[in-house]
């Protein structure tokens, strides 16, 4: 294989990977963004993601309908979100610590109920082919796009528009920037945060169902490798802007595809580090994009993580 063809293969694989791998990042980061906009941080989305993956797969297996699985995964996610939102309402309860506990609890529950679904194979989500115009099999494969990816883009645009232009968007932003101001406006701060966390959990659950129902496409206990937490870093990098979340998710997807892409053309030297590329990238981005002066543009004022 010549160097040029190898490079093309890698770039194509990274492009395809960016689209495939980025979808869960996109959903989880949009969910986290919404929660953080209301002034709370939910680190438990990692657990929500894993539970969403398990429940989506289980429902798809039992009912034969993967789309119903996606819905159930979302509903399960919003139940976890409701738990987080409700518990954090209590005085002196720390939202970061509750998130860590929910991460453990959600993952534990998913592994507990998921044991029975490791073997059987469930119907997977179909994909849409956009590559019919090309003769290149690599391009055609790369353009097999899951509808959830498109749904994620639509969701990002919708969230961007509605946070900026609607009354509900204003309520969420006010709650996140200053709870006293929201209180003075007659807004029920805890209610807004509860609902935002529930919606965030819903999105994260959908992101999880993508993992088990499309790519990698089966339920295993090692399915998620910290995507739920990387999404938190991604939101900071994206400056709490849904559109930037989309681009950041693509970047993370490409980084995640780097290791497998290089392996596919026979470069295996140091592939452990290429597999760690998303983590190194996240850390690097956090170092570059944060500042000790703590005046991040777009950061909700009530957020404990930036205070």
């Amino acid at each position, binding site marked *: 294989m010549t160097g040029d063809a190898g490079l093309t293969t890698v770039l194509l694989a990274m492009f395809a990977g960016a689209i495939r791998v980025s979808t869960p990042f996109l959903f989880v980061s949009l969910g986290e963004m919404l929660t953080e906009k209301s002034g709370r941080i939910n680190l438990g989305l990692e657990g929500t993601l894993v539970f969403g993956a398990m429940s989506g797969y289980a429902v798809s297996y039992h009912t034969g309908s993967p789309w119903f699985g996606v819905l159930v995964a979302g509903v399960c996610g919003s139940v976890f979100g409701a738990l987080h939102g409700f518990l954090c309402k209590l*005085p002196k309860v720390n939202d970061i610590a509750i998130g860590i506990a929910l991460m453990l609890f959600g993952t534990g529950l998913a592994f*507990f109920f998921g044991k029975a679904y490791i073997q059987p194979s469930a119907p997977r989500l179909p994909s849409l082919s956009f590559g019919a115009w090309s003769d290149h099999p690599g391009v055609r494969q790369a353009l097999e796009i899951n509808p959830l990816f498109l749904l994620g883009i639509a969701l990002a645009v919708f969230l961007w528009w509605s946070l900026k232009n609607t009354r509900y968007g204003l309520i969420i932003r006010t709650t996140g920037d200053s709870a006293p101001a929201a209180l003075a406006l007659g807004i029920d701060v805890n209610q807004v945060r509860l609902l935002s966390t529930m919606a965030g959990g819903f999105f994260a659950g959908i992101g999880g169902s993508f993992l088990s129902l499309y790519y990698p496409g089966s339920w295993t206990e090692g399915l998620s490798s910290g995507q739920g937490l990387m999404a938190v870093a991604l939101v900071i990098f994206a400056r709490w802007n849904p559109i930037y979340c989309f681009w950041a998710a693509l970047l993370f997807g490409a980084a995640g595809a780097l290791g497998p892409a290089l392996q596919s053309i026979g470069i295996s030297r140091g592939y452990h580090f290429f597999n760690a590329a998303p983590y190194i990238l996240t*850390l690097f981005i*956090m170092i570059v994009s944060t500042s000790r002066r703590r005046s991040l543009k777009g950061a909700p004022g009530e957020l404990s993580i930036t205070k």
Partner: protein
Amino acid sequence: MADTTETPGIAVQTDLIGNTLDNIRRSSEYIVIPLLALIVAGALFSVFLLALGKSPADFVALVWRGGFGTSFSWQNTLVRATPLIFTALCVAIPARLGLVIIGGEGALVLGGLAAASIAIPMVDWAPASLLLGVMAIAGCLAGALWIGCVGALRYYRGVNETISSLLMFYIAVSILNFFVEGFLRDPSDPNKPSTKPIGAENMVGAIPGTDLHWGLPAGVALCAVLYLLMNRTTFGFAARVAGGNLRAAQAQGLPVGRLMVISCAIAGACAGLAGFFEVAAIHGKANASLIAGYGFTGILVSFLARHNPLVIIPVAIFLGGIAASGGLIQRRMDLPDATVMVLQGLLFLVILVSETFYGSLPFFRPKRGTS
């Protein structure tokens, strides 16, 4: 005729007894609330088991038998509790500064790797005591450097320590795999990629009369030392001030940055020591078995102990016992191994929620009108 007038001395004495009782009543809050939380978590878990048609009584009996019933199970429990003590300290020390570090597992992995790697060129000539000393120092340094970086990133760049420490766990795992499957791999071991073994004669021995290695007494001693450091020295005081109010500490001229980095380095050294003991007393070499989740259970231990180094010891033994009975529960009750994880998650949630009751239950409140 007996003197019935109260002398001032007696009055002071009754007052003293009253005050002591009052103090006991008020400080019992710190025992009663966690106990109630344990009971509530147990009740919720029982409901969970009943819903699945399993008997909670069987579960408790099996935990007792598997974790605490016999001397064999006690030893199993204590061997599991040892790394938990170290990794819980990795959470507890930075927690005094208000930092939530959840990547202790990464420091454990790298501490184990560093200890095993430095042993390779020394195994042939060094006496066991020197070898183990150097290995322990290497493990400590690797862990201290790793988590110290997390503290430095937090202070100098404002990078959130919870997320960065977890990301660094994943990076630590890839470093371990890179070396263990790469040029540190022992070619004579065809099964699992590992470093060269340090040799049975060089391993940390058992405490005479038991199967326990010396890691447990070392962990207990370390807890005591760190308790004194955090509660009885100016360093610990400064750290607690910074944890209570960062701006106030800065206004007082406390070296907040140095406090953060040093606390995190101490924390990392503790987790690194856990890795050292796993290598030098259990596995004899570094490989992927180091990633056993001790770092993550340590988070739970530290939160249950409310970040108090002395309370960490019994809590680590308690959770070590539950973990030790996991296999028995799995076999006898036909429950998946994740059952222990569900119980841990539930316990974690209930303990965190119980924070809300401190100072709000009328029984523990100071009496009105008394100083």
